[in-house]
């Protein structure tokens, strides 16, 4: 569980003032996928960085899995991060080496490392490509590799920052299949920042931010009933179609 209790954050740099967070309180469970949405500059990435421990809140408390965060500096052991651009998060020359890198950093013995690397690659469908050089992977496969590098650390949560922005529709489907399978098999919590309407289909819990303020915390169904309060949000065509077919609001 991720729990925010009246968390506030502001940047010292005035240019980044728009990315501040104002007294955000919410709880995310590991059941289902948590979607973090909002217009550009609403504070989504700031929330992600607070969860990851990269930023320390100015006030309020953040708790990950009931463990009170005293900012011990090792939140990264519980929460993994997958960013938008896969090229900036790949370090190894081969698939296996890249997945193994976090375990090398942690000093995991080789025998255990080999098992965990194999299992992580298998979880995302890259097991047959362990020896392949990373430059032979497509954009979608690189994103799957990033997921494998995250799950090999056995995190409690994975935070994704717009992971499907650069992916084609096929790769996007594979991405969602992979992370839902990972959640089902390993019970890892998933928090996904996205602006792509195609991703909304997968969200079970929505957190919407606007100008650093949490403006919605609930289910997608509940969000749809409050669209008039979200002028920045354009509903996906699938929602509009469902409403039309139900004779409801458009």
């Amino acid at each position, binding site marked *: 569980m991720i729990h925010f209790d009246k968390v506030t954050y502001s940047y010292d740099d005035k240019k980044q003032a728009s990315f501040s967070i104002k007294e955000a309180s919410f709880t995310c469970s590991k059941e289902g996928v948590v979607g973090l949405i909002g217009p550009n500059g609403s504070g989504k990435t700031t929330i992600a960085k607070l969860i990851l421990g990269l930023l320390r809140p100015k006030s309020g408390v953040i708790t990950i899995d009931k463990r009170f965060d005293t900012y011990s500096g090792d939140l990264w052991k519980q929460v993994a991060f997958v960013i938008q651009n896969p090229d*900036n998060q790949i370090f*190894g020359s081969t698939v296996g080496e890249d997945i193994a890198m976090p375990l*090398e*950093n*942690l000093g995991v013995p*080789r025998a255990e490392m*080999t098992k965990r690397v194999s299992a992580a690659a298998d979880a995302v469908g890259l097991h047959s490509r362990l020896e392949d*050089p990373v430059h032979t992977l497509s954009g979608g496969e690189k994103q799957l590799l990033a997921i494998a590098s995250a799950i090999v650390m056995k995190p409690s949560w994975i935070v994704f920052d717009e992971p499907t922005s650069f992916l084609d529709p096929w790769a996007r489907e594979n991405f969602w299949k992979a992370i839902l399978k990972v959640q089902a098999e390993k019970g890892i919590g998933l928090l996904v920042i996205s602006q792509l309407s195609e991703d909304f289909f997968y969200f079970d819990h929505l957190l919407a931010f606007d100008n650093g303020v949490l403006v919605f915390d609930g289910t997608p169904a509940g969000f749809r009933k409050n669209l008039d309060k979200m002028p920045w949000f354009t509903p996906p065509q699938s929602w509009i179609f469902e409403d039309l077919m139900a004779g409801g609001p458009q």
Partner: protein
Amino acid sequence: MSHQTKTSIISGVNPVIKTLVLFGIAFLSIAFSFHGPGWAVIFSGMFILFAMSGVTLADFKAIFGKSLVFLLVLFLIQSFQFNPLKMAFDKGAVAVLQALSLILAATSYVMTTPNSALLYTWSQILFPLKLFKKRELEGLILIPVLAIRFVPEVFNEFNRIRFAQAARGISYKNTSILAKAKNLVSILYPLINRSVIRAADVAQILYLRGFASSGPARTFYKEYKIGVGEFVYTISIGVLFFAAFQLDSFIFSAG
């Protein structure tokens, strides 16, 4: 992110051995004054090493092309150094062979040694010195390793930005030097910006993946052994330099 290394016979050699041999090549090249025939032998050997590294003729042409100006300047300096009025082209040619041999050896090394192997190598080489705590060592080693790997990325980014700015109408040809310098800002400013953003992303991800964290000593996924292959590799380079030395001795003492 990682540079593209080649899969070849040479890439399978223990990276510590490859590094020590590379140092050996550099030392022998500087310590012994080989003459033309000796350098021809060494150059041939380095060319074979280069070819066995999985590189193509196109790669060789690219490297030769990028080194051409340097080699030309070296040739001219060495040719004229002893007497400005008397050209010593043979000395220039020897200097070019020497430089090209070292370039080929270094390129073979870089193209067959990925980041993780470099990190392993330098950890093994520096560890016995026990000058640093191991975790601090990782940062000291990996930062220059990553920096070197960034270079092709920066070149590619430079070309991409240059093309994109040219497509906006910003000309880099047929303009005065002042205008060219001014227009260069249109490439350098975004390039530096992008590099800083990339560096921040990379630093963030490295931290989040436990790089240089406290805890047990770093381990390595890939196992590097020393066996027959390493023995053959080292002896071959040794034999090559011995043959070069002997050939020079034979030719230059025979008359």
